[in-house]
């Protein structure tokens, strides 16, 4: 037969075909289950992990930057606040000092005034006393003078006359 005349090199043997089929199917199923599945799964998982890690790193980096800028803002705000507080403190201090000064001044003025009043009073009292002394001295002197003067009647009447002359009745 013509077909049986072909070169044995290119004539497939049924035995080899069957064995190759059996072996290949076996290999396909065993490898699919016990080799390709875990290997490809692990590779996929690893790729996922790497991608996730990169994404996380990127996110953390962004967060860090944000945190840093936030920190800086916070720091600036704190600095500002400190300056403000210092200013306020200074103002308060000045105010307190001024108030104290005012108060002291007022107090001093009051004391001086009181002292002046007291001095005035003392002065008045002293003056009064002096006046009284002078008065009594005058009275005594007048008494003595009067006692001597009253013995002269004519002279008295003259005097009265001059006095009445001074009074003007309008």
């Amino acid at each position, binding site marked *: 037969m013509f077909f049986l005349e072909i070169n044995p090199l290119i004539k497939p043997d049924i*035995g080899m075909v069957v064995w190759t089929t059996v072996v290949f199917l076996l290999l396909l199923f065993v490898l699919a289950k*016990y*080799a390709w599945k*875990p*290997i490809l799964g692990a*590779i996929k998982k*690893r790729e996922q992990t790497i991608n996730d890690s990169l994404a996380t790193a990127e996110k953390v980096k962004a967060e860090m930057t944000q945190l840093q800028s936030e920190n800086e803002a916070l720091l600036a705000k704190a600095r500002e606040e400190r300056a403000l507080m210092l200013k306020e403190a200074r103002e308060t201090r000045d105010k307190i000092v001024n108030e104290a000064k005012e108060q002291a001044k007022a107090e001093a003025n009051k004391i001086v005034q009181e002292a002046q009043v007291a001095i005035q009073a003392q002065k008045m009292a002293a003056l009064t006393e002096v006046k009284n002394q002078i008065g009594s001295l005058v009275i005594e002197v007048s008494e003595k003078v009067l006692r001597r003067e009253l013995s002269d009647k004519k002279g008295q009447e003259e005097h009265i006359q001059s006095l009445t002359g001074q009074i003007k009745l309008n």
Partner: protein
Amino acid sequence: MVVPRLKSLLVAVFSLSILFISQSVFANDGGEGGAAPEAEEKFNAKEVIFEHIKDAHEWHVIGDISVPLPVILITNKGFETFSSGHFHHGHEKYQGNHLYGVVEGKIKAFKADGTIDEEATNSIWDFSITKNVAALLLSVTIILLIFLSLGRKYKKNGVNGPTGLAGFIEPVIMMIRNDVAKPILGERHEKYLNFLLTVFFFILINNLLGLVPFFPGGANVSGNIAFTCTLAVFTFILVNVNGNSNYWKHIFWMPGVPVPMKIFLAPIEFIGVFTKPISLMVRLFANMTAGHVLILGIVCLIFVLKSLAAAAVVVPFTLALSMIELLVAFIQAFIFTLLSAVYISLATEEHHEASHH
């Protein structure tokens, strides 16, 4: 640096083993009492090469040493198994259900008078563990050893980076996935990745084992037409089982061309369904067989020229060719996988551009 040195060592061993074969041939011939020139004429390069390339029922190791392999037959008298050692390298016959003998590597049934019993021979289904089948089983064992241990390793701590053997194999797996499956099959790649990876490593390991010049390598498994035919049939089945309506429409009723053209194209496209897997089959078979023939042919030059000095040229040449064959082993496995992916992709594509044809 180690690899080329190892390879040249392999080549040296290979050359030596060939030398031993020829010596045993000479010795046998000397025993017949023939003259020396007559014996030298008996060296037949074609025979040596084809003996290597063809399948056999025993596995030649070195010199006169061969490993006998089990013969498994189903005939019109039923199922039987026996060792191929009974054939004594094809010199003797074995009485099973029939009287069996080996003619040119094939088992034939004989009549008592020594002529071939055509009727019984035609009824023989030979499922023997031949040299190629044994090499096939060996390669499968190696593949399973490598990938099952890898699978276990990846299951345990695959999320960590690959180390050791995984560091060597993983880039190859990634190449098949990222450079073949994903760009060609796109979204559908995961469904076919198991097949593509298995085919690639199956062919690759068999190609590489075929390049090992001594036992238990050197069997021409991936250069065996039955082997490549079977793999091509798997691709054929995958393509046509998964082919969608679009694919069949393009074969039998090409859209976008006039009706006479549709009728004209249908048989051509229909033939194309078969030529694709056939091209896969022939490409792998021819490439691997050619590689073996080339290397063996050059080594045989030493014996054809009857000069040991020829080895000075032949060995470096064989070394260079072996390097190329290493590359070819890889490329052919890759191309088979790539084209399988392309054929599957063409058959399962949803939006088919009309510009393909």
